[in-house]
């Protein structure tokens, strides 16, 4: 029974990921006084891409075509760890948050290789910038998750969710506040949103993620775009699950199962609105200011870990 629910949860995350992206773009457009595209636009884009040809440079190696496959598989596997509807997910084990972070790293490793394989200077530029951002984002990501794990006296994501659910509403400890701030900054860097990277830019010199996928087209590009959307909704769902899980059913009940998707949708909409507000309000940072941004996230996460010992 739990398995069915967990599989359903994963499929929901996969299917709803483009919608989340569409909602964020729509809200950004409205905030910027434009009409914007409809929220279902990413779906039609994916359908268009799947029906097109895959253009491959003749100098490319099989790694070029392998990269989107590995990226998609790794991102889906990472999404299988995230509890969205109820307190646990399809995959879970002791120390699974480390596995989640490194599965995302696996996908990114192959995407960088695919970018380098294109043989163009833009691929190399995107790859080297992405290497910088992801290197600096690893430490705050793991430290932030470690701080939450230590505060919850457990090493599984499901355990952390259960512990936060057991705390009373509005109880905010310094550890959680700092870890949330750190993980929010890291999530922005990992998913490539403003102020680290502009997902809607058309200027090559301001691109990080877009420059890496410049050579991809057709179904390969569709898998990459979908994987990016899954990563965004997985990180949002993870932040919601760790820091705002109220509304998730703890035990099985029909009422709980009916309410859970509605609550999840509302929370995701709220986070999407916050993201749209942030993206419209801030300008993209210059490349060499991104280390400062991530350094701030690192300081916050180090403080979060230090606080876990000071508040015992």
């Amino acid at each position, binding site marked *: 029974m739990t398995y069915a629910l967990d599989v359903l949860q994963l499929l929901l995350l996969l299917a709803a990921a483009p919608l989340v992206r569409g909602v964020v773009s729509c809200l950004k457009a409205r905030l910027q006084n434009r009409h914007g595209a409809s929220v279902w636009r990413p779906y039609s884009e994916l359908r268009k891409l799947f029906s097109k040809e895959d253009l491959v440079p003749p100098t490319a190696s099989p790694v070029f075509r392998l990269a989107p496959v590995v990226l998609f598989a790794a991102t889906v596997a990472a999404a299988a760890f995230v509890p969205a509807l109820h307190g646990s997910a399809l995959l879970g084990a002791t120390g699974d948050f480390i596995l989640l972070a490194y599965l995302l790293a696996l996908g990114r490793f192959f995407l960088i290789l695919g970018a380098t394989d294109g043989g163009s200077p833009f691929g190399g530029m995107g790859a080297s910038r992405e290497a910088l951002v992801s290197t600096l984002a690893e430490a705050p990501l793991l430290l932030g998750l470690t701080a939450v794990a230590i505060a919850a006296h457990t090493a599984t994501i499901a355990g952390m969710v259960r512990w936060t659910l057991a705390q*009373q509403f*509005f*109880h*905010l*400890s*310094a550890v*959680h*506040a*700092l870890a949330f*701030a750190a993980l929010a900054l890291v999530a922005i860097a990992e998913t490539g949103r403003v102020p680290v990277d502009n997902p809607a830019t058309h200027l090559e010199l301001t691109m990080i993620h877009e420059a890496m996928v410049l050579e991809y087209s057709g179904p390969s590009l569709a898998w990459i775009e979908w994987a990016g959307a899954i990563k965004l909704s997985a990180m949002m769902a993870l932040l919601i699950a760790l820091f705002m899980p109220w509304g998730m059913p703890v035990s099985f009940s029909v009422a709980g199962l009916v309410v859970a998707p509605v609550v999840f949708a509302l929370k995701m909409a709220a986070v999407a609105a916050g993201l749209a507000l942030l993206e419209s309000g801030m300008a993209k940072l210059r490349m060499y200011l991104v*280390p*400062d941004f991530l*350094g*701030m996230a690192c*300081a*916050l996460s*180090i*403080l979060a870990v*230090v606080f876990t010992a*000071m*508040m015992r």
Partner: protein
Amino acid sequence: MGLISLAAAKTLASSAAFLFITVLLMAAAKRTATCIALFSAQCAIITAQILATAYLHHSGEGFLVAILVFAVKVVIIPYALLRVVKGLKTAGEVETSTTPVQSVYITAALIPLAFVVVRPYVRALAVDGQLLAAAVALVLSGAFLMVSRKKALMQVIGLVVLENGIFVAAITTTSGMPLVIEIGIFFDLLIGVLLMGVFVFRIRDTFDHVDVSKLRQLRG
């Protein structure tokens, strides 16, 4: 009423966390307007703290103090400082002696220091350790702001943050200050800030800049 007292208790318990975050963000801020906005956010948190304390200890005075704090520190002083920033035209950027990352790390190191320093007093006075540590952290970070920022206006902001810290410490240890002392401190602060605002314009008119590091040229 049970819900409100629960909310009050939780506000009190969580305000320290928010104060730490404003301290760190102020260390990283690059524009003076951001610093002033963060300062007024800090004072808003302190207002909430005073309201919660007043509710829990059933003191009417506390509500008056809260209103006063809100009016003076959240509205008037930030407004005055923003006026000065707009008037100066060159004070928009915070010029620092340390890079933003270094400032953040130094401020982040001051926070555990505050905790360590406060530990014996927490046991002796039986108060909330986090709030007292937040107070000491505010004092230390205000002092650090004054030391590491070069513009005269930032020195003022550092001073008011420091005063904030003393204020929080007072609230924590005495569970609400007597109103008379409170009013006295406020007027002191108000006059001080207004005078500083005037002086900053005078400095600018005389020297054409407000960079305190250039005061060194006044040496004999």
